[in-house]
């Protein structure tokens, strides 16, 4: 670097040269062309690891997933690698499968209900903790526990608690005079059971992000609103909530993508059952690919791609909404 610096004659030139090409007008002319080339090359050198990373861990797996879904892979052709091209046949088969519509409906219900409750409860708690009181930080830390526990632990605990015969929830229900509920074994309740567990797990995430969003709002705004005579409710709906909109948007989007692909909680608690009553697209994809002794990788990846398309669709909506927000 030192040699190069003396040649370029200016430390400043050098600094932005390495990061990005400087505007052409500021360049003294020909003698510096090789230096600029080198700067370009070194810029690429900096980018290369990221590009390699993206290609190896994102582009290639995605390409493989699409490739798997547009060919008919059997166990034999998976090994030999000569699966015949079958176009969209796998997709049309999964769309016509009797599992598709329950899985899609379950995914939609699971995602939207989870997010609605997680977000509402998370926001309410964030507002609650915004007013500091004695032990508030201890309480807030306690609320983070679901987030710290390994999912395997929390899901297993929930499935014990919701056990029909020996679960604590049913003994509580019986103690207060309500009949027992077959949380995990009834086709009407299993989705509700996994929803409750998932809402509980998702609250801390919403709480933390909304809380930090609240912290970034200047207290002057609240003071001004209070002086203008706004009551607590009005201050929340007219001031806090609109100012939290950017944070809310990203929380909802992250929550959406995160919930869309939830697999572990459902798999541990119900295995997607009974029958298909708590099967989401993610569970179905796993069942096809790894759930039986005979893997069906093509259908499994087709279901996986449908999930990706849904996630991308909502991400696009988010980006549009952001643009509109920034424009105003």
């Amino acid at each position, binding site marked *: *670097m030192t*040699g*190069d610096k003396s040649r370029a004659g200016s430390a400043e030139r050098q600094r932005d040269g390495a990061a990005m090409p400087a505007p052409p007008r500021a360049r003294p002319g020909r003698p510096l062309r090789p230096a600029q080339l*080198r700067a370009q*090359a*070194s810029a690429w*050198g*900096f980018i*290369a*690891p990221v590009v*390699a*990373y993206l*290609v*190896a*861990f994102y582009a*290639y797996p995605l390409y493989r997933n699409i490739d798997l879904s547009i060919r008919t892979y*059997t*166990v*034999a052709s*998976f*090994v*030999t*690698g000569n699966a015949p091209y079958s176009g969209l046949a796998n997709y049309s088969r999964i769309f016509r499968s*009797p599992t598709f519509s329950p899985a899609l409906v379950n995914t939609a219900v699971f995602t939207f209900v989870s997010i609605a409750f997680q977000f509402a409860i998370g926001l309410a708690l964030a507002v609650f903790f915004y007013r500091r009181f004695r032990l508030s930080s201890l309480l807030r830390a306690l609320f983070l526990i679901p987030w710290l526990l390994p999912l395997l632990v929390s899901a297993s605990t929930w*499935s014990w608690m919701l*056990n*029909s*015969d*020996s679960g604590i929830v049913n003994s509580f229900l019986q103690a207060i005079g309500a009949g027992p509920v*077959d949380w*995990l*074994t*009834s*086709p009407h309740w299993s989705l509700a059971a996994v929803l409750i567990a998932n809402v509980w797990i998702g609250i801390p995430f919403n709480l933390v992000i909304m809380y930090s969003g609240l912290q970034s709002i200047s207290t002057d705004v609240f003071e001004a609103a209070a002086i203008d005579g706004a009551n607590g409710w009005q201050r929340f709906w007219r001031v806090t909530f609109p100012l939290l909109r950017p944070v809310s948007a990203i929380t909802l989007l992250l929550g959406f993508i995160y919930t869309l692909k939830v697999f572990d909680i459902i798999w541990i608690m*119900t*295995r*997607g*059952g*009974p*029958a*298909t*009553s708590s099967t989401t697209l993610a569970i179905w994809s796993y069942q096809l690919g*790894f*759930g*039986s*002794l*005979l*893997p069906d990788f093509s259908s499994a990846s087709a279901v996986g791609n449908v999930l990706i398309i849904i996630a991308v669709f909502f991400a696009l909506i988010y980006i549009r909404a952001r643009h509109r927000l920034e424009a105003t």
Partner: protein
Amino acid sequence: MTVQITRRACAALLALTAVTALAACSSSSGSSSSASSATGGTYSLWDPYPQYNASSAWWKLVASCGTKAGVTIKHTAYDTTALTTQALLAGQQGTSPNILLVDNPVVSTLATAGILTTTAQNGLSTGAIAPNILGAGILNGGTYGVPIGANTLALYYNPKVLQAAGVSPASITSWASLTAALAKVKAAGKKGITFSGINTEEGSFQFLPWFWGAGAELTNLGSSQATAALTLWTTWIKDGYAPNSVIQNTQTTSWQEFQTGDFAFAENGTWQKAGAATMGAPIISIPAENGGAAPVPTGGEFFTIPVQKDKASYATSAKIIQCLSSTSNIVTTDSTLNYIAPTKAGQQAQLTADPSLSSWVTAVGVAKARTGDNLGTKYPVISQQMWTAVQKAESGAAAPASALQAAQSAAAAKLNQ
């Protein structure tokens, strides 16, 4: 600067190659096989027993059999479900292990994938092995491995509970007498029977004794016999003879229920016999609908020899397997793994050491391979539909007959694809 750019480019290139290499050689352990010749070298062995480590008797036996064959063995243990995927991936990459121990219903899947060699190719002898246990390894006339041992299902019972209810275990010979016993147990204030009716392969495994015991065939899930078997289960749940939790029970959680001491019966496998002995729970065979012992499915792994570039290695692999499955060795191995030996001589030796095994030896004697009758890779498709139907009926989402008929048409549609 030039030096630095080159260095950076090199680093980037290195990073890229490292990443690609990582993706390509996820299972490098097997790749050494091509380098090993008939004598000397390293042979790889994969098994689904992650509970054992290098200090266990099983690993020591494997190592000593390797030494006898003049090679060192690289021993890797995988989780049962992960092993199938690992074996398929290794087959795709051409890095299969020299010896692969897999769960018996997976043998036909891997054989269909073209990963495994037949005994005709690899020279393994199958002479003394009981045909019903070997059945899972046979596909289209080829035998793709030899069993390490077999386990199966039976009805464990709690003598204290039965005595309190006034039921004699000897009286249970058919579904009717079993249901009558369950009614008496319930009347005495205890719980009837626990099993695993979960929506995975375990659920199918546990349902098969009743399914086969009614005379149903896997090729026709919608038959009236199949409906009778499923109706037996759903009636038990409805009448409170079996707890609602059987819908979600794995065989382990079902066993935990039985261990509470409240249950009269538990349908479970050979692998629980040590725990059963400590709680004083003997077994009876699972009754068929109209009396006699129902056919039960075999469990247990097979020794297989995956396809290698170096065909000469098969002889050494076969030698190692013959050593591991020789009567004296297999008795020790099967006793640690809770298996019944696959040969008459082996079973005799096990009985001499532990006479309490006799009812298990009888049970294994009438057991059937799930993938037998040349079902092969049709079995997984049928099994998946079967456990789905069982789940629907147990949870009340559908009646047994309509659930099974739907399962039959779904299985038929998938098999005709």
